[in-house]
């Protein structure tokens, strides 16, 4: 009987910890210190994607496309993301990148300042255009931009068209500046983050990329359903895919062909569908002049 009791106890005690055996590690045995910075690899194709949405979302969203490009070109792809459009533009300017997905506003700046070249542009919802949406939380009483007077507002990036230029232009038309109109405003650096902040009532309103809002509306309706669009801007030229000035023409051509042929392949179509892009097309620089006009107006003011 006693034997029985003690064997039961032993069994119970054994149940206490059922874990894999620990591995012995000597933490004092260390390697020589080395640079934490990555060493540039010349064999790579460096592609930057501006922070239209958060870097992670971007990564996820563009991963397949990047892999496809890598596969088509037979080159390793290195994704480069930066928090601001300006940083990406600088990298393009400094030829630290071979390809970049940039915002329309950033393109205008790059193109105009250091000859950033437009490679292809996507066609979404049938047009190579997009809008700026002024959104408020669903619970907000605001129905027009003017209702957001004295409220907290979220911009995306200072260089962003839809996230900064367009609302500033709308305020200018109201003879207002963000500083005068809003009680407070912030830069979220990405559109999805701005949507999240509105949905969570962290800000009373935000200006976001229509493509991003629609993308998220399809992907995460729970989020977008908590936002309401109170103003839709005029259409603008869609954010393009650019290359630095002086990129090897063969590579430039190869790259353009890859993008343009995406909609002609099964894999390409699947990638495009995920990105909510119909196809890539070659677009004239003039298509971004409306934006240039707004820039001038805002700056001239």
């Amino acid at each position, binding site marked *: *009987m*006693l*034997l029985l*009791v003690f064997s*039961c*106890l032993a069994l*119970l*005690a054994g*149940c*206490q*910890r059922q*874990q*894999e*055996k*620990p*591995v*012995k*590690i*000597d*933490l*004092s*045995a*260390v*390697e*020589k*210190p*080395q640079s*934490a*910075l*990555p060493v540039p690899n010349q064999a790579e194709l460096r592609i930057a994607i501006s922070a239209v949405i*958060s*870097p*992670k979302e*971007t*990564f*996820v969203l563009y991963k397949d496309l990047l892999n496809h490009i890598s596969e088509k070109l037979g080159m390793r792809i290195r*994704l*480069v*993301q*930066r*928090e601001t459009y300006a940083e990406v533009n600088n990298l393009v300017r400094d030829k630290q990148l071979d390809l970049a997905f940039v915002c329309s506003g950033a393109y205008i700046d790059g193109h105009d300042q250091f000859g950033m070249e437009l490679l292809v542009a996507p066609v979404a919802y049938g047009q190579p255009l997009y809008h700026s949406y002024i959104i408020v939380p669903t619970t907000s009483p605001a129905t027009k931009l003017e209702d957001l007077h004295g409220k907290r507002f979220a911009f995306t990036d200072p260089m962003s068209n839809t996230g900064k230029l367009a609302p500033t232009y709308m305020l200018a038309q109201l003879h207002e500046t963000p500083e005068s109109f809003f009680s407070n405003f912030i830069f979220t650096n990405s559109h999805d983050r701005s949507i999240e902040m509105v949905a969570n009532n962290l800000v009373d309103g935000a200006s976001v990329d229509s493509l991003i809002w629609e993308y998220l509306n399809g992907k995460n309706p729970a989020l977008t359903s908590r936002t309401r669009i109170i103003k839709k801007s005029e259409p603008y030229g869609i954010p393009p895919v650019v290359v630095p000035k002086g990129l090897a023409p063969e590579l430039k051509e190869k790259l353009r062909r890859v993008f343009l042929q995406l909609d002609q392949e099964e894999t390409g179509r699947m990638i495009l569908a995920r990105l909510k892009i119909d196809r890539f097309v070659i677009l004239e620089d003039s298509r971004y002049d409306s934006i240039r006009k707004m820039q001038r107006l805002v700056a001239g003011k």
Partner: protein
Amino acid sequence: MSLARFRQFFWQLKLAWKFSLAFVLIVVVMLLGLYAGVASLISESIYSEYRDRGLAISQNLATNLIDPILLDSTPRIQLLLKNAGETTPEIAYSFLSGPNGRIVSHTFSGGFPTGLKIINQPGTTEAYRLQTIETERGRILDIAIPILQSDAWTIHVGFSGSAIEEKLARIRQTIFWISLLVALLAIGLGTWLSRLITRPLDALAAGAEKIRQGNLDYRVPSAGSDEVGAVTGAFNQMVATLQDDIARRTRVENALRTSEELYRSLVDNIEMGITLIDREFNVVMANATQGKLLEKAPELLVGKRCYQQFEKRENPCPHCPGIAAMQEGKTVEAVTSGIRADGSHLTVRIKAFPVVDEHQRITGFIELVEDITGRLQVEKDLANEKERLLVTLRSIGDGVITTDVAGNIQLVNQAAEQLTGWSQAEALGKPLPEVLRIVTAQTRLPCENPVKKVMDSRQIVGFDNQTLLISKSGREFYIDDSGAPIMDKEGQVIGVVLVFRDVTDQLRKEKELLKIAKLESVGVLAGGIAHDFNNILMAILGNLSLAQLDPTLKKSTHNHLEKAAKASVRAKGLTQQLLTFAKGGAPIKETTSLTEVVMDSANFVLSGHSVTCHFDIPEDLWMVEIDKGQISQVVQNLVLNASQAMPDGGVMEISCHNHAALPEESTHRIGRFVVLAIRDHGTGIPTQVADKIFDPFFTTKPGGSGLGLSITNSIIAKHGGKITFETTPGSGSVFSVYLPAAEIEPETETLVTKTAEPRPRAKTILVMDDEEMIREVAKAMLEHLGHEILLARDGEEALSLYREKMTAGLAPDLVIMDLTIPGAMGGQEAVGKLLRLNPGAKVVVASGYSNDPILAEYTKHGFIAAISKPFQLHELERIVSNLLA
């Protein structure tokens, strides 16, 4: 301890201990289980929480790192890792590995440990991977999380377990102490509870023990109204019932025991063997007597076959009454005999009766064995005794008649038959007077019925011996009779016994005795006359013998004197016979030959008779020690009888011979006898009187005294001899007298006249006699013998004279004293006094009473010799010369 031993140990414990132990065991096991379970659960929970927390922090960190990674912002990465380590103390380290396993950033200040580089590499599909590592800083959970779902980037967070281990240790300790406390409380509570439960049970057990020890009055105190209380109540009730039951049973047992003891006492003490035997003849029970009968311990018989034990048989005894009893279903008796171990015979009566069980089936039998050996012997002895008594009664010399109370005859014995002439058969039932016809002798009138006399007086009644019984045939007997009542045990008279005796002879003998008394008177007279006669004869014979000495006498004168002397001697014999006849007397023995005594006595009797005598006496006949006078009388009597048996005359033969021993009595001290046989050729002695001839007063001769042979027998007996006779009726008888032979040879008797012995020198002799003529003749005779004589008349004078002479130095050499001095001191008295004067004095006793016992035993009285008067000169001379030699 093995399970079996524990179980054994456990069952030996008291109930309280069992409860306590069981409770403790259960509590301990439960607590241990609880402890292990809780500790495990808490451990698991804490570990899980710890892991989840680590994982959450790590995942948060990983999420936060995505952007800096994607943005290639190493300083931001560095900052994030640093901040994570600072805000979460559990984070021991963190590092980010990039493409190709390059460590992009880490928190190790002294360099990145090489060991960490290769561990915990999550697969491409894994969201995270955990690996516990053992380091000098303690146990650490390495949480590896791939970033951007690629193997290119992985954040590792080292989550320290030491805090959690400490926490767990504290929790375990707390649980342990709580468990211990609870266990102790539980043990205490368990013990208290078990005591609470078992206390009434203990009380119940103690009560049961007290009751077991006999205290039936004890009641267990009530233990409430629960189940134990109910049990206690029921127990007390049970005890009460039990008590009643036991009391009743005790009474029954006592009765049973008494009965059993009685039965056992009866069975064991009864003088009867009792055996219980079953149908298979096995002994079931045997009592002590049965054992004694078989000389075995009774318990050894039990279980064994009866026939083997009782009779050493291999099969049931053919005479077994038990078999018959079982077959017949009733008591059966048998008598059988056997032999005991000591060889003595044994007779037993066996009574067997069947034993029946409650179903009326015969299960065996009981044998009652009675040893009737003794009883049979007693019965036999009793029958013998009865027979003997009857025979005795019948044979008894006295007549015995018994009657019932009515006086009807019940028994007549042989003597009574002879006396009455009625046989018992004739007399039975007849009234007594018809058979016992008794009359008074003088009046011849019928006596009073003795039965009536006895019944009236109810005591022993004597009858006048002048009662005359007239027999059936008319004979008459004088009877002496008595009657006595026969009483039973209660003292009731159930009959009368009459005892009577023919006293005709007795009366006749009484008459004879009367005659003897007369004769005795004559004897005394004769004795006196004889004494005087002897004195006179003494004087005559003395003087004659002195006169014969005168040489001047003429021849013819001498012859006359000689004849006168002989006549005087015969006269002396007559007086002697007269004396012997008168008084008997002890023989004065002297050693002599029988020849002269026999021839003289026979011739004396037969002188002038028609019967002649033929002597046959050998010369070498042994000497005998006899009183000549008495033996002479014997010879005279026998010769006289013989001559009277031959009335027509004839020759009788008298012979003597030596005999080595008496025919029947060879034990005589000497064993040598001289036999004198006197044979006649007469009529012989009739057979019927042969036994009585030596009886006094028995005579067949008309006018006979019946004393002759009686005196003869008496004399011979006094000489240590014996007389026998043989007789042939019609042809004669022979009487043989056996006399002891003398031990020494006889002195050669020599007459003074014939032998010229030299006379002894003159001595002084004192003669004491009251008769002057005796004194004178004695003086003359002794002086003739040359002695000087002193004379005294009586003892006083003799003593005075002796003293006077002794004083003068002339003490007499010899004193001759007369035994009897009328009116004065006689010889018997004087000799004592004289011997006191002079113990060396020689005194001779002389007496005319030759049958005086003193003469026979003179030495006892101080005399040195005896001489019976009258004595002659030569007798005196012989004694004197012998004494003075």
